[in-house]
């Protein structure tokens, strides 16, 4: 069963966050639970970044489709869990670097000023709310780049 579980995990990891094409939902920390039974039935538990996120249904459908396509898989169930609450700590360093490079999005870790993905200087907040539920808008104090900051 380990083989099937790995294949299912890989299928889930192939799903990108619609906000970040090329960035896996697994790398963003959305996958919380994966159960694969001996019969090949799969239950996937995901946690949303923000509860009002309009992409939730789309992500669930994408995961359902990806897992369904794995050989040997039976019934598939994908659910959004109410707990735990997602935090930016669930995003690993490599993924932080990737979304900084590709999307000029910094991840707020701790209470310090988020760093500009372009030049590394501190950024200051321009607007607490931004283009999506999980991002505020900052500006770099050195290069003046507009930096979106992912927060939790």
């Amino acid at each position, binding site marked *: 069963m380990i083989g099937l579980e790995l294949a299912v995990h890989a299928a889930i990891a192939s799903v990108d966050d619609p906000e970040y094409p090329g960035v896996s939902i697994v790398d963003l920390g959305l996958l919380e639970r994966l159960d694969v039974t001996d019969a090949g039935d799969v239950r996937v538990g995901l946690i949303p970044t*923000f*509860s*009002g*996120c*309009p992409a939730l249904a789309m992500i669930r459908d994408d995961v359902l489709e990806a897992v369904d396509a794995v050989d040997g898989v039976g019934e598939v169930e994908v*659910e959004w869990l*109410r*707990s735990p*609450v997602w935090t930016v700590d669930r995003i690993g360093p490599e993924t932080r670097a990737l979304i900084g490079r590709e999307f000029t999005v910094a991840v707020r870790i701790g209470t310090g000023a988020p760093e500009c993905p372009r030049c590394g200087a501190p950024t200051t907040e*321009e*607007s*607490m*709310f*931004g*283009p999506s*539920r999980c991002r505020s*808008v900052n500006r770099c104090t050195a290069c003046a780049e507009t930096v979106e900051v992912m927060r*939790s």
Partner: protein
Amino acid sequence: MTVDVTPAVREFLLAIADDKHLMGQQHAEWIGVTPFLEEDLAFCSIGQDELGHAALLYELLAGDDDAAIDSLAYDRGADDYRSCHLVELATDDWTVAFARHWLFDTADQHRWALVSQSTVSELQDVAARVEREERFHRLHADNMLDVLLADATARDRFVTAVAVLAPLTQGLFEPVAGEAEAVATGVAAGPLAAEWDAFVATIEARIGAVEWGSAPSQAQRTLRSDDWRPLMARMREVIDLDLSATW
């Protein structure tokens, strides 16, 4: 996942959900027309959060079936909604809309604190998620309030807006159908009315004494205000274009 609660407790939870639902809609109607961009983004995001919180509660009551959740959210008769008149109020004055956001989210914090240790464990989960997002709402309101109160004209307008909303705000704290049973069974730690004094202290610490007036006649939230019907008509506008359509 559906929670197994008594009909009375269900009414109590519907009051929270309906307030969130209508508040979310009211905020959403400001998209594109707020006085400046930051507020546009803020009302858009905050409104989405409120709708998301309402959806979490409707889901607890209606189960995972999307059609059942939609039906609970949009298809009840006027008497069966449990919204308070504060969130039903129509306004085209952004100062009033902003003041309502501040009053509502401050009051909402008290309400969620009451269910954060609920005997219904699913409510504890929802409360934790809601609070994580609500703190941004309060932070936003507080920051903007700092700016408004520092300017004499803005301060006057803001205080006047709060005075308009004060009686309706009392209505949010009035007992709702099912509340007594929710408290007796530990679903809520206490009645919302018990939080009133602490709420008033928070508000008046920022803007001074408020004339709260008398609460509207809501009959435990079974009565809708005049603004409810047109609001619901706007919310249902697309659904009503073709009732037989599948979504």
